[in-house]
């Protein structure tokens, strides 16, 4: 891929790209409580950007400030080069899809979707056409005359999406868009949402607490904690290269071992941890003897009954204490000889019945992992 092509897919890498949404030093206080604490953020045109975090981390407050429902205590932001501080909610080039959908209960689907266009004085015949088009996009053209209480959860969700999209806003804000759907529908809708975003080409900002949703949907994710960003990056970066224990722990599951740097050289690092010596195959700027953390994903650990051929780093011995069968994978909780617990996931490639080397409770097992898997964290 040429560099130019790479920039089209990932504009945040292009040093010359102008961010579409610029957030600068935004702080929001509710009394003594600081919901959002001095954050900066650049979002580029056409991105599907996720704000991910637990409840109370400030992600919804940030979204509501973008929509104009809350005024920042300090700081500023602009959309497409226009400063938003003094623009009221009803004049902003944003539309929001609410967590509760917020469909107007006394209006039909058609009226709900057309409401925004009516407010901007679009002629009646054009409203009708655009409403029809957008309802076709979300596959609800037969539900025009229904009232919101006659719709299922999934249908309400799509009406809410259509209503937010029909005005073709510069930015679509989605607050937990799939939160109220059941798991099956949620997975299906995730892909629909991505397809629709690609079709309409509008910049999406999604707030969610569901890390799986964020991983599937987004071009980039901002992990939020206590009103600040812990890390901003692509799903792969966030998952494979978390910058802190919080992010490593929040996204997916992970084993975290405390340790001290035993040897540090240009192309590798060795750390003595509770799980034995860990070798990392790339250099890091850490001091010998420094206290650090090693994060190791459960799926990156191999579990065998046979002892390793040679002694060395990146392996450990333990006893299976618990097994969680999830269908596609099983989680093995292994207690190492020194008492440390390590989670390991292994795909169930064959049915458990047919397994020749079935690993079961109270069995001695050996763990090993590649030198590229451990992540060294200093915070």
């Amino acid at each position: 891929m040429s560099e130019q092509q790479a920039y089209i897919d990932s504009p945040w890498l292009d040093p010359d790209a102008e961010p579409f949404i610029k957030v600068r030093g935004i702080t929001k206080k509710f009394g003594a409580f600081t919901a959002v604490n001095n954050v900066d953020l650049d979002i580029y045109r056409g991105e599907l950007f996720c704000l991910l975090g637990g409840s109370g981390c400030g992600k919804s407050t940030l979204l509501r400030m973008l929509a104009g429902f809350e005024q920042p205590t300090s700081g500023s932001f602009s959309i497409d080069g226009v400063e938003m501080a003094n623009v009221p909610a009803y004049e902003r080039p944003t539309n929001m899809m609410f967590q509760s959908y917020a469909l107007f209960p006394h209006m039909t689907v058609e009226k709900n979707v057309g409401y925004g266009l009516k407010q901007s004085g679009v002629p009646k015949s054009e409203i009708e056409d655009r409403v029809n088009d957008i309802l076709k996009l979300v596959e609800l053209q037969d539900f025009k005359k229904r009232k919101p209480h006659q719709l299922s959860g999934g249908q309400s969700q799509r009406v809410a999406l259509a209503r937010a999209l029909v005005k073709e806003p510069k930015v679509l804000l989605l607050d937990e868009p799939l939160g109220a759907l059941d798991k099956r529908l949620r997975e299906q809708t995730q892909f629909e949402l991505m397809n629709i975003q690609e079709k309409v080409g509008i910049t999406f900002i999604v707030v969610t607490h569901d890390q799986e949703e964020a991983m599937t949907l987004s071009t980039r994710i901002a992990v939020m904690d206590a009103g600040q960003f812990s890390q901003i990056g692509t799903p792969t970066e966030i998952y494979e290269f978390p910058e802190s224990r919080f992010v490593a722990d929040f996204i997916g599951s992970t084993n975290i071992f405390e340790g001290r740097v035993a040897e540090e050289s240009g192309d590798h690092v060795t750390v003595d941890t509770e799980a034995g010596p860990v070798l990392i195959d790339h250099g890091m700027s850490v001091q010998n003897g420094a206290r650090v953390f090693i994060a190791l994903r459960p799926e990156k650990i191999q579990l065998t009954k046979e002892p390793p051929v040679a002694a060395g780093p990146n392996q450990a011995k333990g006893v299976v204490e618990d097994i969680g069968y999830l269908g596609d994978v099983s989680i093995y909780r292994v207690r190492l000889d020194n008492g440390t617990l390590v989670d390991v996931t292994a795909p169930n490639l064959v049915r458990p019945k047919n397994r020749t080397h079935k690993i079961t409770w109270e069995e001695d097992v050996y763990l090993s992992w590649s030198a590229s898997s451990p992540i060294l964290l200093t915070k």
Partner: protein
Amino acid sequence: MSKGRSPFLTWMLVLGMAFLYVPMILLVIYSFNKSKLVPVWGGWSVRWYVELFQSPEVWSAVMLSLKIGVVNATFATILGSLAGLAMVRFGRFKGRTLMSGMLAAPLVMPEVITGLSLLMLFITMQDLIGWPAERGFTTITIAHITFSLAYVAVIIQSRLVGMGETLEEAAQDLGAKPFRVLTDITLPRLAPGMMAGWLLSFTLSLDDLVIASFVTGPGSNTLPILIYSRIRLGLRPDINALATIIILVVAVGVAIAGIIMMRQQRQRDLELSRVSDG
């Protein structure tokens, strides 16, 4: 115990209901009494109803009460709704706590005091600016509005709190200016509450004797005032008939208000359950 309600509970229910309703039932029955002497049963008849409708005094009292009721309910609903909106939707403005207390005060103030203080106000105003020139329809209506609007404000506030602000935000987000949000979203959603408030104000006004008798003037008799003044001269069968009609009207009003509020509650539960199960 699972075989049914204990007899004790059943008896308590019967006694309690009897305590509440036997007097009214007796009154209704005696309104159909043929005899001119109230305590003496002389057979069924509707003559007192006929007589009642032929009495110009009664008619003018009915008309005055209805007129006051309608005007009062309308103004109280408008003012009470505005007050409720201000309390719930305008954030923490200066003097909000004071206003909240003052809005609720008429609900707990003894009627005698409300009546007396309003009378003093009207007299003082008449001295100072010459208005109201005479006490009657205008003064009673104003007096009724003062306490009715407090009830409306309470209903509207609870409705607004129950509604939440999300729909208004959604409308604003779609480009509706504040006034459009009010007319397109807030008012239609408030309509059932406003209707309930209107009916409640109407029945409150129809019932009121104490405040009205303070602020009324010569010749302006509302229905309760008329009944009271006639009763003072002894029990009369035509008053029984009149009371029966009032019971009927009030019961219907309260029932309609109750149904509206119940529907509203059900609608709200429905919306809530939809949000939670998706």
